[in-house]
């Protein structure tokens, strides 16, 4: 089997799992400034999927691609530390304010520029928006078949791949031709940890923007070692149409964001009596959770 060229889409997101009381601004929008940023959890599973394909097909190239502000270069480095072969960013102020439509357009144009891609992998969804739309929309725009909610890699064929999908009420085994775009579920294997030699090799990887503020020895290193240079593509690099990117390319308009606080009155406390158990089982059956 020939090695593949895989692009992993990864997003830097605010760590919404560790939110404090100031996580939301009074106007209901996310207070990004105070939240630490992390590698979107599902995207780490996508990276692991790519690395497992690479384990099976030596010579496979895993390219980590992130779209975001300048600081999102952390995502590319993190990808390197865990085993990606190449990394790049699409970053331009003009991409800002993009919804899933504009984002998927931007990613699709980038994937086309990379060229000859056999497989695109992404997490099912990002924890800041939870739409699960960017992956599928990107597939449409690059004209790849798509398989979503992957939780297991079953078989890698000559020109196809068989995977297991996690659905609401069960699983589905699907075989897809390659090239393909797949979104990987949080139930897929946890991403391998950083490898120390890879980390030490790539810890000085920088984009040009970052490099301008760096110490001299790091500038010299990046000069001497081209693999430490993280490409940063802008609107012109990926030949994107201005009308389809950023705020202009985003038909989604957020009307209102509300902070929902669960009230105690919505919870029912049951004791361990037979009656309570019957009541609970009855409710679970009525809600189609069981039965």
């Amino acid at each position, binding site marked *: 089997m020939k090695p593949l060229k895989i692009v992993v889409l990864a997003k830097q997101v605010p760590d919404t799992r560790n939110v404090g009381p100031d996580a939301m601004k009074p106007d209901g929008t996310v207070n990004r400034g105070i939240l630490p940023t992390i590698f979107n959890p599902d995207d780490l599973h996508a990276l692991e999927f790519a690395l497992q394909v690479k384990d099976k097909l030596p010579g496979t190239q895993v390219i980590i691609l992130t779209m975001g502000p300048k600081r999102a270069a952390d995502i590319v480095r993190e990808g390197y530390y865990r085993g990606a072969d190449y990394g790049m960013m699409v970053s331009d102020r003009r991409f800002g304010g993009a919804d899933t439509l504009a984002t998927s357009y931007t990613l699709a144009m980038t994937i086309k520029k990379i060229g000859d891609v056999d497989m695109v992998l992404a997490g099912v969804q990002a924890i800041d928006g939870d739409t699960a739309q960017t992956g599928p929309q990107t597939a449409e725009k690059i004209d790849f078949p798509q398989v979503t909610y992957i939780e297991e890699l079953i078989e890698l064929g000559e020109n196809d791949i068989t995977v297991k999908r996690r659905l609401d009420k069960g699983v589905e085994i699907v075989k897809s031709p390659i090239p393909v775009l797949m979104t990987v579920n949080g139930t897929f294997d946890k991403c391998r940890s950083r490898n120390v030699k890879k980390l030490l*090799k790539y810890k000085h990887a920088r984009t040009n923007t970052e490099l301008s503020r760096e110490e001299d020895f790091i500038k010299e290193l990046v000069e001497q070692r081209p693999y430490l240079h993280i490409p940063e593509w802008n609107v012109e690099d990926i030949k994107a149409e201005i009308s389809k990117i950023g705020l202009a390319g985003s038909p989604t308009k957020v009307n209102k964001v509300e902070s929902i606080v669960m009230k105690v009155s919505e919870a029912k406390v049951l004791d361990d009596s037979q009656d309570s158990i019957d009541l609970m089982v009855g409710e679970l059956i009525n809600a189609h959770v069981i039965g």
Partner: protein
Amino acid sequence: MDNFYIDTPDFKFQLEHPLMEKIIKLKENNFEDKDKYDYAPVNLKDTIDTYAKTMEIVGDICANVIAPNAESVDKDGGARLVNGHVEYAKGTAENYDALYKAGLIGMALPRKYNGLNFPMVPYVMAAEMVSRADASFTNIWGLQDCAETIREFADEDQKMRYLPRFNKEGATAAMVLTEPDAGSDLQAVQLKAEYDEAKGVWLLNGVKRFITNGDADIALVMARSEPGTSDARGISLFIYDKSSDAVTVRHLEHKLGIIGSPTTELVFKDAPAELLGKRKFGLIKYVMALMNSARLGIGAQSVGIAEAAYREAIKYAAEREQFGSKISQFPQVYELLTNMKAELDGIRALLYETTRYVDVVKTYDDLKNDKGLDKEQRTEMKKYSRMADVFTPLIKLFGSEYANIIAYDSLQIHGGTGFTTDFPIERIYRDARITSIYEGTSQLQVIAAIRGVTTHLFSNVIKEYNDSLDDKYSDYKSKLEKLTNDYNDAVEFVMSKSDTELIDFHSRRLVEMAGNIIITYLLFLDSQRDDKYLKSARVYLRIAESDNEAKKTYIYNFDDSALEEYKID
């Protein structure tokens, strides 16, 4: 995401100790590896960052893989014996795999053997974190120390064959020393090594007992190569490769603690082995070196256990309410907690101080073999070497004893729930117990450390510490000077009796008096760099004052005929 490196800022503090610069300069040799290896650091700052980032990986794996597995490894009974071989508990195997895939096996080896060329400080730090996560796993991880012995004493051909396997294949290791009748007294070793002329190999026959991780891929085996001898000079060290399949595990010990660490009884039947280094030097040179680094490892293990126990105590005391308030608000409880923290900070300070001494010696030793040393370097190496020799047993003694005390106090704070298996503290308590026994009991550490007392080496180090202590601490300094004078007087008093048995009898008291003073000084010296240690320094000073006073009283009140009353017929 939890991370044991990030949540314990003491590690970064230790990595930034001024002596690290010297160690790194010696170890990295003008950073000459930077053009040969893409993962080698390019300057001093980059090297410290390299250590820190590597420790962050270790901290991540410890918090998110090893610690969550600790309970199941313990409760499921640890490793199993299957057809004469050891099968690790599921969690243990996962832990090792995670560390192996992260490239963390063989960290201390030079880069040409696939290692990271790390000095002992970050390696000991990693061992400490692993131990906090699961003390039983520290043994399996820590036995990569054997690689260090191969590196120091094997020939180049052996090094090229064995050393790269640690990092590349994740080879495990064991040090196979003790036998049913040779525990603390290693010179009684009987395992027979005979050279087979026809095959051109050494063959090992006999039984070894209490061997940690005995079914490892690469084993360093101590055996009697000189028939007719009965002492240390008849013993050599051998490398046995598991692929020969000539050693079977006959039995796994059932233990109180560190259940995840398999303790094996091994049967050697014509097991082919290679001589390591020179004949007859096995025990007197190589194993002594191996034991020293293993003792430092137990020091790290002890500090990790103490850290885990302290954290459990703080967490529980802040949650548990009795008589209408959190138990952490009661004087008897907060005294315990504050003492535990001071003791923990104290043994950690001693651990890294000792490790830095060991590092200076090791790096000078490499330089000596590589390029030779000038006169100044030779003097310095000798000085650090003498300090490392007495500080190593000191940290093993203090670390392990305090790990036990802190685990005991932490369980006490838990009350009845601590005695159940519902909380991790009972496992931590059981795991702590072995630390003051294996790799030389506390009693043996005292025998090794007493030289520091009788040769006044400890006094000299204490004097140096005193000289570098800032005058802003003059109040404490005068108290410390009084402690030192009292200690010196007590040493003189005991030595003046010219009775070696009496010196032995008081040896633990004297070593502990010295240790208390050293720990207090180290905490004040640490406070000079970061005043967050000042509280622990003051608290430990009070512990040292009262403990040393008690010991002093005991020594002075002990009249010349008293010793007779203690002897067992």
